[in-house]
Each structure stands twice: as C-alpha cells, then as structure tokens.
C-alpha cells in the first residue's frame, strides 16, 4: 500500500538540484534580498577606519552602558514576575485565562510609541496611578532611568511570557505528578522539578526579552524622554546621530547589529535548527 504513494511523492518532487519549485524560488529570493540587502548596506557603508574613535566618545559609552544596564534590569523584572505569570497561563485553572493571555500579550503587537503614551497616562505625574503617587511621595517616573526600565519591561516582558508558557505546555507533566506523589508540595515541585525542566525555555525567553529591551525606542522616547546619561539609550543615540553625524549613527547601528546576531547565536538551538 505504501509503495505507490511514495512513488507519487517522489514524482511530484520539483526538478533541479535545489528541490524548490521556481514559483516559490522567485518570491523567496525577493524576500531574502529585501531582508538582507539593508544589513549588507550597513556593512558596506560602515566607516571602518574611524570606527574605534566613533565608538569611544563619552556619549556613546554612556548610551551603551545605559542600554545594557536598563535592558538587564528589565529582563530581571520580567523573569521575577513573568515566569510566575507564564505558569498561571499554562497550568492554572482560573477563569478567563484566554482573555488574560490576550491582554498581557497586547504590548507584543502594540506600536511601542502607543505603549509610551499609555505609560505616560498611567504612571506620569498627572497619570491615573502616577498622580496619587506623586502627591503622596513626590516620586515621578518620566525623565528618569527608572522610566527607561519600565518602558523596556512593558514592551519586552510578553516575549518572555510567551516563550516560558510554550515551554511549560511542552514539558512532560508526569515528572511533576511523580514529585507530587512522592510528597513534594506545589512550591517545592515548581522550584525543584518544573523550573529545571523549562530552564532552556526560560533562558531563550530571557535572551529574547533582553534583545527586545535593548532595541526599545518608541516607548522610551515617549515616556522617559531623551537626556544623555539618564535616558538616552543606544537606539535614541542612533536616531540623534543620524541628524548630526551619520557616520556615528552607522557605527552605533553596527554595535546593535552585532548584539542582534549574538542573540540569534544564543537562540540558534531553538530557532535556527528547528526543522
């Protein structure tokens, strides 16, 4: 019964060495060219000879340090509150889980600048939560490094949640059941069995979250403003440099491109090798 089927399959295989029909190859080539050409242009136009001096100015070092510190803090916050939320979404029986998942993943598809406006209206000095906080304590978030971290967390945490939730769903629950039968409590089971089981997913989510936080622009410039050393991250620096010193903008872009490629390298087992 199997033989004729396999023959037909092999006959419908496209000819040629690539195994890709021409009707797919042409649009696929367009897609490749469209995605790769701009990055190649960045490399072609890069001011390689002055790269070192362009990247060693105090402003660039400030922006780089601020970006790395704020993105790392945003990732840390996302881990502390995002992993438990992922567990709730994947394992709990609470009502309205679907709605909850939809709500917390909105920032994933929301234009970041809209996220910035929303943060301003919620946590700004005249915001829904920000106003009572300001009148009670005198603390206000906009134009501070805290605001940068908040903006990045808002935009990046959903990436971590989705990644960890996927891992939790894929994990074999029998290990947890076994732990429970052996007398482990729910907290103990989560800490000693579930977490180690989903560690690769958590790591991948954290890397993705960190990269997204590092690239954050719209929410940051809207909610946190733009001041060197406090709120001017790498992406804001690129945007500013483009007006005054395009070479510096290209040099900074190269750094962010290198970070992105490194991120892909760290994720390659999960994404690139998937077949």
């Amino acid at each position, binding site marked *: 019964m199997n033989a004729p089927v396999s023959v037909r399959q092999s006959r419908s295989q496209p000819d*040629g*060495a*690539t195994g890709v029909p*021409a009707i797919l*190859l*042409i*649009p*696929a*080539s*367009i897609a*490749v*060219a*469209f995605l790769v050409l701009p990055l190649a242009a960045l490399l072609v136009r890069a001011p390689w000879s002055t790269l070192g001096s362009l990247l060693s100015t105090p402003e660039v070092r400030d922006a780089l340090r601020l970006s790395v510190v704020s993105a790392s803090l945003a990732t840390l916050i996302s881990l502390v509150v995002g992993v438990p939320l992922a567990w709730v979404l994947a394992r709990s029986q609470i009502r309205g889980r679907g709605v909850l998942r939809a709500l917390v993943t909105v920032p994933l598809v929301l234009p970041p600048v809209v996220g910035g406006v929303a943060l*301003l209206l919620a946590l*700004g*000095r*005249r915001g829904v939560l920000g106003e009572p906080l300001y009148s009670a304590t005198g603390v*206000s978030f*906009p*134009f501070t490094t805290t605001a940068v971290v908040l903006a990045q967390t808002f935009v990046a945490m959903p990436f971590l949640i989705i990644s960890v939730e996927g891992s939790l769903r894929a994990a074999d629950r029998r290990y947890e059941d076994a732990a429970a039968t052996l007398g482990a409590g729910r907290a103990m089971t989560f800490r000693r069995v579930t977490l180690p089981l989903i560690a690769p997913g958590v790591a991948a989510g954290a890397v993705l979250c960190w990269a997204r936080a590092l690239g954050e622009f719209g929410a940051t*410039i809207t909610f946190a*403003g*733009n*001041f*060197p050393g*406090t*709120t001017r991250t790498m992406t804001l620096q690129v*945007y*500013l440099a*483009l*007006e*005054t010193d395009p070479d510096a903008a290209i040099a900074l872009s190269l750094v962010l491109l290198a970070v992105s490629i490194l991120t892909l390298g760290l994720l390659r087992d999960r994404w690139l090798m998937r077949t």
Partner: protein
Amino acid sequence: MRPPGRPPALQSVVLGLLGLFGVLGLLGCGASDPPTTEAGTAGEERISGTVTVFAAASLTDVFTVLGDRFEAEHQDVTVVFNFAASSTLAQQITQGAPVDVFASASAATMQTVVDAGLIVAEPEVFVQNTLQIVVPAGNPGAVTGLEDFTNPDLIIALCSAEVPCGAAAVRVFEAGGLTPQPDTLEQDVRAVLTKVELGEVDAALVYRTDVLAAGEAVEGIDFSQSSEAVNDYPIALLAGSPNPGAAAALVEFTASPAGLDVLAAAGFQIPEG
C-alpha cells in the same frame, strides 16, 4: 520552461531582484499624482496634482490652515505636509526625499539644503518667531523667569540643540549667563509642548506661536532675553520639485495678504518689506 541541466537558483535570484526593483520603482512613481500645468485662457496657469511640503514642527497648525485655504482656491491641488524638526526634514531632503516646498524654522538649517544645491532661488524669510517660557496651566512649579531653568528641582524640557528651537534656547541662556538644568532634550518643539500640555514638566522653552496654539492647557511667560534669538523662517522651492507650478503658487500664497493674515493670527511676526 527552463533549459535543461542549468542550475535554476542563480537565474531565479537575478529575476527576483529585478522584480523587487521593478516593484519599488512602480511604488515610487505611483506615489504622487502626475502634475499638469496647462496655460489657461486668461494667461494664468492652471495648476493641479499634489504639492509636498516639508515644514518645521512649529508651523504644524498654521500651515494646515494655509493648506486648506489654498486647496479651496485651487480645487485640483492637494497639499501634503510632513511636519518635523527642521533639521530632520533637511536631512530627509538631502537624502533625496521628493519635495516641492521646504519651510524651515531657521536660516542655518535651510542653508544645509542650499549648500547641497537643492534650492532653485535664494530662500525668502516669510515669518519670524521668538521663544517664550511655557508652563502647565496653574504653573505648578511657580516659574517666573528664565532663572528658574537653573533650578535642578524643577522638571525642565528643552529642544535638543541640533533643532532650531534648541539652538535658539542655547542663545537665550548664553545671553542671560545661565546654565539650564534640563531633564529631557526633545527632538522637536511640538514634543516639548506635548510634555507641558500633559503636565509632565514644570517649564519649557517653545515658540510664542506654540503657546498660542496650545490654548488653555498652558500658560506663556515672557522673558527679556527672548529678543536675543529671533528665528527667521525661510521658505524655498526645491530644484527637484515634482510639481513646480503648483509649488510656486503655494509659496506665493503664503506671502499674499490672505496668507499673511493666517500667519499673523497664529502669532508669527511678519518681517518688514
């Protein structure tokens, strides 16, 4: 279809690239209506099509009104605006953006486009503007003058020094011998104004016209050093203008009595002569 024995990959990639550039080319051409300029019976040229205007952020409201009035007089013309910091616009123009008219908030910014050889004739200064202190309604920071900008406890927004309103701010602080303590350097004057309207900052420097445009959400405070930085607004036709006839008519309209009325009502100063 394909010659036998020939590897298809390279051929298809080349075809694909040609296709991509073809599509991009079509998009580029299709973006604006083709202008037509016919000689009318009264000797006056009949204009049509789209006029693309790049204008300083501070001109947002007043040029939108001017554009509507112009369209009402010329039914076949559509005016399209791109409002942003003048320096951003100048950068986009020198990078090849298809523009008919450029109105800048400073002569220095206009000069970068002139230097790139992209302007037909000498740009004309059509309005002037000065800075004013702007605070949220009720003045929560109790700001009285430029000296308050040195108070680190107040939340202060200024334009980035690269954009005309920021350059003007640098000049007034120098004139006053003051070192401001800003908390954010925004990319255009309207971004500064928005932060004041939302009440997120205690004080900022914007143009007098912006304070008027914001209405009751803000209060303006005059300061003596504002005369040290009078911003000239030049307007010019671009050499690569896709629709030069309609573009020239629009520039003329801004200098007409009707156009000047709109500009003056918005708080702009009209230069003598």
